[in-house]
C-alpha cells in the first residue's frame, strides 16, 4: 500500500485525478500523521474534518467527471496568520486567542477553491516576529531534524516554523507561509524543503494578520520546486480588497518549468561573502554555482553595495509598520480584554496589550513607536526608507548584468532551541541574506542544497527580477535536479 504521507502536491493531485487513490484516503493518512506528531507542536489547532470534507468534495467531483482544480485532493497546513472563517486565528499570540474570524482570507479561499483541504492552523513566531519559532504564545515548534549525535530540540526556523516543521516531517505535503524578512526562506533552508516568496503584490494580503504591510507576502512551502509552482499558482492573483495587489495575470508557472538555463546569467553578489558565515554554507554556494553552470548558465560577479545596511534598515522599517499595524489590538473589537478593577479606557488598552503581547512583539512595537516619534522620524525612519531605495537600486543595477542571483539563504544551519535567546540582535542576523530581497519586493526562493557534517540541511537562495518567479523557479529546479536532496529526518516524534 502507498504511504500517502511520502507524496508531494503534484503526486497527490495527479494520483487523485487519475483514480490511483481517493482524496479521502490521502486526507485520512495525513490527519493520522498530524495526530501522531503532537511532539513537534507544529499545529495550534487541527482541523481533520475540514480536510475530510474537502477530500470528499474532490472525490465527488471526480465521480461526476468535473475539474478537480489545481490543488484537487491535496490537504495542506495553513499558517495561523491567515484568517479562516470559524476557525481560531491567533497569529500565535495571546491577544488573539479565541478569535474566530467571520471571513476567509483571500489566499486561503483561493486554495480551497482550487480543491485543497486544511489539516490545521500552523504554529509560528508571534505575529510572525522571530527567526526560530520561539516567540509563539503556544510554545516552541520543534524541527523534525536533530543534530547528529545529540538529542537537543532544534529550531525549525521562523517565522513560518510550524509550516517548515510539518512539511519536513511529512505530516503535510505543503503549507502556506508568509515572508516579511525571510520568514519563508529561512525556515525552508533550516528544514530541507523549498519555499518561495513571490514578487510583492502577487498574493493578496487581505485576511492575513498584518505585520509590516510594505513587506508582507504569502507564499508556498513544499518539498519540491514543482509543488511550489503549483501551489503558488493557486495562491496568487489580483484582489480588489488589497490596495497593493498586482493587477496582472497569474502565469502558468508549472507548465513553463524548465531546468535548461542556456543563455541565462546567474549573478553572484560579492557582498554576501560575510564574516560569520559557515564554511559549509560557502562550500554549498560554490557547488550551487557549478550546478547552474552545468545547467547551461553563465556565472557572473555582481555587486550589491548596500547589503550590509539592509538588515538594520529592515529593523527600523518593519517595527515602524508593526507598531502602527498592531495599534488595532485594543481590547475593544476582538481578542483579549484586560480590564483592571476601576480602570478607565486608556488603562484598559495598556493592560490588555501588556497581557496580550509577548516580549519580542513588545520590543518591536516600542522600537517602532520610538523611530516614528516626533524628533526622531527623519533620523531613523526616513533614513531607513532612503536606504531601502538604495538597496532596491543595487538590485536593479545587478539585474542589468544577470537574470537571477544565487546566494546562501542563511549564514548558518539550524541551531538548538534556546541557544540564541540571550541577545535579540544575534537572532536578527539569521535573516541577513534574506532581508535585502524583501526590502526590494523581489521574488526569492530557498531550495535544499545539501546536508552539513552535523546532519543538518542547508539551503540555497535564488532572487529574481520583479515578476520573474519563473526565472527563480527554473534556476531552483536546476539545483534541485543536480543536488538530488533526498534526506529525511529520522522519525523520533
Amino acid at each position, binding site marked *: 500500500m502507498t504511504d500517502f504521507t511520502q507524496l508531494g502536491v503534484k503526486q497527490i493531485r495527479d494520483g487523485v485525478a487519475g483514480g490511483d487513490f481517493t482524496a479521502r484516503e490521502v486526507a485520512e493518512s495525513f490527519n493520522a500523521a498530524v495526530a501522531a506528531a503532537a511532539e513537534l507542536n507544529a499545529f495550534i489547532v487541527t482541523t481533520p474534518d475540514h480536510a475530510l470534507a474537502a477530500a470528499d468534495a474532490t472525490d465527488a467531483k471526480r465521480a461526476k467527471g468535473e475539474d478537480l482544480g489545481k490543488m484537487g485532493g491535496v490537504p495542506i497546513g495553513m499558517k495561523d496568520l491567515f484568517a479562516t472563517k470559524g476557525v481560531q486565528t491567533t497569529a500565535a499570540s495571546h491577544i488573539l486567542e479565541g478569535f474566530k474570524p467571520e471571513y476567509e482570507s483571500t489566499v486561503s479561499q483561493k486554495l480551497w477553491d482550487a480543491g485543497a483541504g486544511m489539516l490545521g492552523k500552523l504554529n509560528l513566531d508571534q505575529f510572525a516576529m522571530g527567526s526560530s519559532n520561539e516567540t509563539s504564545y503556544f510554545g516552541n515548534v520543534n524541527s523534525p531534524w536533530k543534530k547528529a549525535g545529540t538529542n537537543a530540540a532544534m529550531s525549525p526556523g521562523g517565522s513560518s516554523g510550524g509550516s517548515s516543521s510539518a512539511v519536513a516531517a511529512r505530516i503535510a505535503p505543503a503549507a502556506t507561509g508568509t515572508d516579511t524578512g525571510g520568514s519563508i526562506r529561512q525556515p525552508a533552508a533550516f528544514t530541507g524543503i523549498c519555499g518561495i516568496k513571490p514578487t510583492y503584490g502577487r498574493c493578496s494580503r487581505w485576511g492575513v494578520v498584518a505585520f509590516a504591510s510594505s513587506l508582507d507576502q504569502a507564499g508556498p512551502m513544499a518539498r519540491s520546486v514543482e509543488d511550489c509552482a503549483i501551489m503558488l499558482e493557486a495562491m496568487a492573483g489580483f484582489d480588489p480588497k488589497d490596495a497593493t495587489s498586482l493587477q496582472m495575470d497569474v502565469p502558468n508557472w508549472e507548465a513553463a518549468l524548465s531546468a535548461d538555463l542556456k543563455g541565462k546569467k546567474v549573478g553572484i553578489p560579492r557582498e554576501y561573502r560575510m564574516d560569520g558565515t559557515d564554511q559549509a554554507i560557502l562550500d554549498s554556494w560554490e557547488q550551487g554555482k557549478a550546478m547552474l553552470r552545468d545547467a547551461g548558465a553563465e556565472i557572473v560577479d555582481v555587486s550589491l553595495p548596500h547589503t550590509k545596511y539592509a538588515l538594520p534598515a529592515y529593523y527600523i522599517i518593519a517595527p515602524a509598520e508593526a507598531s502602527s499595524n498592531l495599534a488595532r489590538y485594543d481590547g475593544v473589537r476582538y481578542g483579549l480584554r484586560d480590564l483592571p478593577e476601576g480602570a*478607565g479606557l486608556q488603562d484598559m488598552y495598556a493592560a490588555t496589550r*501588556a497581557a496580550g503581547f509577548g516580549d519580542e512583539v513588545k520590543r518591536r512595537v516600542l522600537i517602532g513607536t520610538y523611530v516614528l516619534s516626533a524628533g526622531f522620524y527623519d533620523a531613523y525612519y526616513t533614513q531607513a526608507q532612503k536606504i*531601502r531605495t538604495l538597496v532596491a537600486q543595487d538590485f536593479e543595477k545587478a539585474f542589468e548584468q544577470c537574470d537571477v542571483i544565487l546566494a546562501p539563504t542563511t549564514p548558518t544551519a539550524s541551531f538548538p532551541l534556546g541557544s540564541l535567546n540571550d541577545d535579540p540582535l544575534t537572532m536578527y542576523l539569521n535573516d541577513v541574506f534574506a532581508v535585502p530581497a524583501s526590502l526590494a519586493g523581489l521574488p526569492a526562493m530557498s531550495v535544499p542544497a545539501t546536508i552539513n557534517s552535523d546532519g543538518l540541511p542547508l539551503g540555497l537562495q535564488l532572487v529574481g527580477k520583479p515578476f520573474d518567479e519563473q526565472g527563480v523557479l527554473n534556476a531552483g529546479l536546476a539545483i534541485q535536479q543536480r543536488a538530488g536532496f533526498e534526506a529525511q529526518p529520522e522519525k523520533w516524534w
Partner: protein
Amino acid sequence: MSVTREEVAKIASLARIKMGDEELDRMVPELNNILDWVEQLGEVDTSGVEPMTAVIPNTLRLRDDVVDAIPETSGGRRDDVLANAPVAEHGFFGVPKVIE
C-alpha cells in the same frame, strides 16, 4: 543615540503597553543594543536619494462607485463585526466609561 529608562517608559506609554519596573529594566539595554546597531545607517550618504514609497510601481486604484460592490468589505454586517468583541451591547462595542 541611546534611550534612558524614563524615555522607554514614555515610549511604552505612547504605545499603550503597561510596563512594570522589572520589565523596563530589562527593556532599556535591549532597546539600546538595537538602536546602537541601527546607528550605522548614519554612515550612508543619502543626499539626493528619495525615500521609498512603493516597492513595486503600482497605482492607487479607485473602486467602482457602487454601494456594497465587494460584499466582504461592505456595510450591513454589524453582527459579524461585533461577533468577536469582548463586550458588545445593543449593537455597539462596550467600553469603560470615557466621559466623567
